[in-house]
């Protein structure tokens, strides 16, 4: 069972998870500046760590997670193995998906991070299906799907919300509103300012939360997860946060107001939380340093693991298309 009170143990776990995600992605930033080190697009969640950590920490292992293109935090918060995750991001054969996913399509079914889609808006219908299976099997778990403010404009998201509402599926919709979809501001692509208000139209509870306050995210997630688990139906949570880096690592953010970045930099979820834990005496400087250092060590080890493995060999290129391949 999850703590329904914020206790120091939990606080330390929340901090550790966020700093691990930050260090992990900072390493990707560094590596993607080296030629050919990181094939493909690198899409990072810098600044959004509190959303992934807060929500995933409020789940049980039987709960299913459906992720999107900005997935690293969701996976790390779930406790995915750093080595095989980094190796996969480097598209290596020892990666968690054998080098067939790369950074964009990471899934760890063993940990119930069941599917990741980089087709924007695809997550909610997939999640609806997973939640249907849970209801069908009378399973204890619920499904949580992460999608962006941009994705909220896809028809698929509305269809999934409506059907989940009609069938009262155990499904928590989590909109990570990071103010941007590519170079488009959310005010420009969302007709109504608040995505959580759409919940009303689908007969489910909807609430927003400060997505840079990890405890607030955790508390609201706990409440809504409990609601979904109790069989009452789906719920929608909107976490208000900010995409601190470009859409992907090639994006230089020429369209972003530096003043706005500075405002959100001051609201960095990790720095704020570190300060809070120090102020409240949950951790001291030395302990923080140990945690941060440990995260860095684990990340470096993961890179070494990735470096140590190879690109997948030609023999796996044609496998996995079918479970039972047609005989040639």
């Amino acid at each position: 069972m999850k703590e329904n009170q914020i206790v120091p143990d939990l606080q330390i776990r929340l901090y550790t998870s966020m700093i691990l995600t930050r260090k992990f992605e900072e390493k990707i930033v560094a590596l993607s500046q080296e030629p050919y080190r990181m094939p493909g697009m690198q899409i990072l969640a810098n600044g959004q760590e509190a959303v992934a950590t807060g929500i995933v920490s409020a789940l049980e292992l039987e709960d299913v997670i459906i992720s999107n293109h900005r997935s690293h935090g969701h996976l790390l918060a779930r406790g995915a193995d750093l080595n095989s995750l980094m190796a996969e991001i480097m598209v290596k054969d020892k990666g968690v998906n054998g080098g067939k996913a790369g950074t964009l399509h990471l899934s760890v079914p063993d940990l119930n991070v069941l599917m990741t889609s980089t087709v924007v808006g695809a997550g909610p219908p997939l999640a609806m299906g997973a939640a249907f299976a849970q209801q069908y099997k009378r399973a204890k778990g619920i499904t949580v799907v992460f999608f962006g403010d941009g994705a909220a404009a896809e028809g698929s998201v509305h269809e999934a919300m409506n059907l989940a509402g009609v069938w009262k599926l155990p499904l928590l919709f989590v909109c990570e509103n990071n103010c941007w979809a590519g170079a488009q501001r959310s005010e420009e692509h969302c007709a109504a300012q608040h995505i959580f208000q759409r919940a009303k139209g689908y007969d489910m509870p909807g609430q927003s939360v400060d997505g840079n306050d990890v405890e607030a995210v955790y508390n609201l997630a706990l409440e809504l997860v409990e609601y979904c688990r109790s069989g009452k139906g789906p719920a929608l949570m909107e976490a208000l946060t900010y995409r601190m880096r470009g859409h992907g690592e090639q994006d230089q953010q020429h369209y972003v107001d530096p003043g706005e970045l500075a405002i959100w930099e001051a609201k960095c979820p990790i720095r704020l939380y570190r300060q809070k834990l120090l102020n409240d005496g949950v951790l001291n400087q030395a302990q923080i340093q140990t945690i941060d250092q440990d995260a860095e060590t684990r990340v470096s080890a993961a890179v070494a693991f990735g470096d140590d493995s190879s690109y997948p060999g030609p023999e796996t290129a044609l496998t996995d298309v079918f479970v039972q391949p047609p005989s040639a």
Partner: protein
Amino acid sequence: MSQKTFGQALNDALTIAMEIDENVFIAGEGVGVSIHQDPNMATHGLLKKFGRKRVKDTPVSEAAIAGLAVGASCMGLRPVVEIMFFPFITLASDMLVNHAGKLGYMSGGKSSFPLTVRVKAGVGFGAGSQHSHNLESWIAHSPGLKIVWPATPEDAKGLLLTAIFDPDPVIVVEDMMLYRMSGEVPAGDIRTPLGKARMVTSGTDCTIVAYGVALYTVMKAFKPLSEQGISCEVIDLRSLVPLDKACILDSVRKTGRLVVVHEANRFCGFGAELAAMVAEEAFEALKGPVKRVGAPQIPVPTAPTHEKIFKPGPEDVVLAVRETMKK
């Protein structure tokens, strides 16, 4: 004439179309404000030039983007909409396949849909199968939709301009791998006719048909083939629908052999249509089996090692030609 990149040539075409016809507008995700600041992007600078009325950034809503094009074109506008990556056309496919391609027919010819969909294609940038998937056969298979695929900067401009002013829905596929390629591009309003293939080299032993970036794979095979004394007639298809049947059939009647090369999956790919057409209409001319060079039947992989297996290379073209030559 001036040197332009493929992307600049597209940009040129959009600019000219918007200048000469007030009814032309463009819409899509990031066609106005883009994360890229790159003059090789087709829509670069158009927002500044033409303003927000005619350069519409949309939400991430492919069905709505395509619907916008269908509805607005039926009202007499000439929408040019962008689908960011080829696989996302599946989200727009109801509007395109069931509506743009069918409503004109079902109106008994009373309505028309002069819309253009620009779609970015490309295999080999490491993004994997949800960003790379060449679906030209899906489109070609759907009645009422035209589809063109330029391989040179000049054709990028000429085909896009023709598509925009064509009275029917046209899908223009833009190979991202070609955006930075330079070439001579005539100034002003040039039109490349739809349904006219381009003879790249003339030859006597084997006809090779390709389109888009695959044409350059073929050109890399051209030299080793000539060194082996095989004279190839290379055709840049340019337009899949309408199809320049005469050009292909005439060539095959001359050479007696056909190899089709594309980056899409071989199975049920566009090459199958060309092979069938030649079997039906020029069977008597064939001296060897028609060969298709294309990708294996797997999703576009992510790893560089797997991408290499997926993407047809010059050696695959050489092999196919030699097989049909029985050499």
